[in-house]
């Protein structure tokens, strides 16, 4: 079956622009995660959804970052007034069950954001 897909794959924004990154999780997956991966680093947790509920947003670096999953499937990560330090790969992952630490997370290919 189809895996996790993300769009766009690449995004170039001028500093100060708003961007929206989309994630299509695996159908039926309850849990959805967003991670940020800087060049040469491991992914860092941003936020977690269980269905449409955002249960953890402790990793969002500032109030310029906003995520939603209104119908419990597709999710959008929005970054307002982008800054150069926002340049990174944004990864989305989904897993089948809620709150099961042994569950495998399936990652999308990521969106590479470059802020000029």
């Amino acid at each position, binding site marked *: 079956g189809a895996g*996790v897909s993300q769009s766009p794959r690449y995004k170039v924004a001028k500093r100060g622009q708003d961007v929206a990154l989309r994630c299509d999780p695996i159908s039926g997956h309850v*849990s959805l*995660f967003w*991670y940020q991966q800087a060049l*040469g*680093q*491991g*992914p*860092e*947790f941003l936020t*977690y959804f*269980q269905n449409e509920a955002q*249960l*953890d947003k*402790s*990793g969002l670096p500032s109030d310029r970052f906003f995520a939603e999953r209104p119908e419990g499937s597709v999710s959008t990560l929005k970054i307002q007034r982008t800054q150069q330090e926002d340049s990174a790969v944004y*990864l989305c*992952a989904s*897993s089948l069950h*809620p*709150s*099961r*630490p*042994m*569950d*495998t*997370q*399936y*990652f*999308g*290919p*990521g969106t590479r954001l470059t802020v000029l």
Partner: protein
Amino acid sequence: SQKIEQNSEALNIQEGKTATLTCNYTNYSPAYLQWYRQDPGRGPVFLLLIRENEKEKRKERLKVTFDTTLKQSLFQITASQPADSATYLCALVMGNAGNMLTFGGGTRLMVKP
């Protein structure tokens, strides 16, 4: 805060040898530890999960150990192949709402023919 360390230097080995990667962590006692593979331009792919009460786990040419006393996990690939060349990430399951992962920085493995 939780700190997870992986050797940031690339590991270069000859085809057929055993590759051993290390993951050390502090300030936490995770119940689970996972290893992922990441190729350039792609998202991480799950390889293995090991529980705190498991000392060792194997899957084909892969072997993972988990020493909760040393706070260390070792990841080995036996009979390595050039196709094994990738970045390998260890991740702790933090067990808050959901099962978010805290990743190390990854180690790049290069297997030369």
